[in-house]
């Protein structure tokens, strides 16, 4: 029996997206099914081959059952974990444990949302706390705004530094043909955009789109049978610090400190080893907080760190190369897309936005209002 995380003993052998942007006529589950079929086809597998199902749908709290029926899956392991947008990183962690334990052979992680065509708004998957609702915070942006205001107060972070995050994401999106927002965006446009919940304006916020993603995992020993370039999972860990923003222990420090440190330790690597980073950027402040908490820069230095296009194409650290939730897509929960983009980069299949020679990628998911944090480190066979 082994102890600890099964480093490198499971791999992603299929990864796909479907319906990113607007997908009229589809239900959320149709989109998740299309993405799943594409990911399975990459691996030469069919739905009936899946015996580990990991799924969180926006408004179907029993999606593990619904999706099993829909695709004709009889899973031995069903994980319908809901931790917000980070859920899919937890699915990744749990799928690796189940695969390594021999409890399942083929794990499918899936997500799909038609929120943009269905309502045009971010889908709310939880009810507001009765101790917050009477004060009418905009959900979820006001909670992130309170964290951003505090970061600015303590560390002198500026609106313009936050804008650097949005502009970097846009410049990556301009290299991604699948990205939804690709038109010109400047620092001035972000800084001067209409305020929504101070200090965050419209351009500090993620998109509202449709879209679906899916990945397929097997144990590493059979991965070469299913993928030309298997992408190995080297570490995955998660943390929960609170639910409501008022209970966040420190508004400028997230649980990514814990999830990141554990994932790095499992993988046996450090931040300086990572070639490409994907973090859940629901708002511009997220990217700063996660870069700090994951150890890419010191606490409070995130604003200065991203200045001068450092995380943009051509910069020292490629971050959110898909364009992220800010400019690629944001179908309600973005977590799974951070994994898919990591896989695409490690396969060398990221087209114009490819980070040359990428062998180690970090994917980071966020759930609730900075409440749940989950970090995964993936690598090519060269990183094993």
């Amino acid at each position, binding site marked *: 029996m082994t102890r600890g995380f099964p480093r490198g003993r499971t791999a992603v052998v299929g990864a796909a997206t479907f319906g990113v942007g607007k997908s009229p006529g589809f239900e959320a589950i149709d989109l998740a099914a299309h993405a799943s079929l594409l990911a399975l086809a990459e691996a030469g597998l069919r739905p009936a081959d899946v015996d580990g199902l990991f799924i969180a749908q926006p408004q179907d709290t029993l999606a593990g059952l619904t999706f099993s029926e829909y695709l004709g899956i009889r899973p031995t392991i069903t994980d319908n974990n809901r931790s917000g947008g980070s859920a899919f990183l937890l699915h990744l962690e749990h799928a690796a444990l189940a695969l390594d334990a021999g409890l399942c052979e083929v794990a499918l992680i899936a997500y799909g949302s038609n929120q943009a065509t269905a309502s045009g708004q971010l889908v709310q998957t939880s009810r507001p706390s009765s101790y917050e609702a009477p004060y009418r915070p905009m959900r979820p942006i*006001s909670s992130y705004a309170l964290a951003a205001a*505090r970061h600015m107060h303590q560390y002198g972070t500026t609106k313009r530094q936050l804008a650097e995050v949005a502009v970097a994401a846009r410049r990556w999106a301009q290299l991604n043909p699948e990205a939804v927002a690709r038109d010109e965006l400047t620092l001035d446009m972000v800084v001067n955009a209409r305020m929504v919940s101070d*200090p965050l304006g419209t351009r500090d916020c993620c998109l509202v789109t449709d879209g679906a993603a899916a990945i397929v995992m097997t144990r590493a020993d059979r991965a070469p049978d299913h993928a030309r370039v298997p992408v190995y999972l080297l570490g995955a860990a998660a943390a929960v610090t609170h639910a409501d923003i008022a209970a966040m222990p420190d508004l400028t420090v997230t649980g990514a400190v814990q999830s990141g440190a554990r994932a790095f330790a499992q993988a046996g690597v450090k931040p300086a080893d990572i070639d490409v980073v994907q973090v859940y950027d629901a708002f511009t402040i997220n990217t700063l907080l996660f870069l700090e908490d994951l150890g890419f820069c010191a606490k409070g230095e995130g604003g200065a760190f991203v200045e001068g296009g450092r995380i943009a194409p051509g910069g020292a650290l490629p971050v959110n190369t898909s364009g992220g939730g800010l400019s690629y897509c944001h179908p309600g929960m973005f977590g799974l897309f951070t994994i898919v983009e990591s896989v695409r980069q490690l396969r060398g299949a990221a087209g114009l936005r490819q980070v040359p020679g990428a062998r180690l990628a970090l994917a980071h998911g966020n759930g609730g209002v900075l409440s749940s944090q989950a970090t995964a480190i993936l690598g090519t066979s060269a990183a094993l």
Partner: protein
Amino acid sequence: MEPAALHPDADHRRYLTEGRFMLQRSRSDGAFVFPPRVAQPGSGATDLEWTPASGLGTVHSTTVVRCKPPAVDYNVALIDLDEGPRLMSRIDGVAPADVRIGMRVRARVTIENDAPLLVFEQLA
């Protein structure tokens, strides 16, 4: 008097209806608990009793929620109570954008939408 951990939300609402802002406090270690619950987080201690709050606090963070006219912008703030807990509320009597981190504030129970509501005002 019944223990404060039996019906935490209902008791809190009843106190607010009476115009009183009360906090739960653990008898064993003296720490204050908010929002109300059946046990102290971490220790699980159920020796919680209702204690009058001082009502004094400090703005920990603040935002202005921007609205399309005719609706008007409003403030949402996090307040660090002098007793320790942090809660969400708003600062009345000050323009929403003039609320500052570090501002000293005092609690007041008002009525809004036919329900009692805890809000704060700047300390003179």
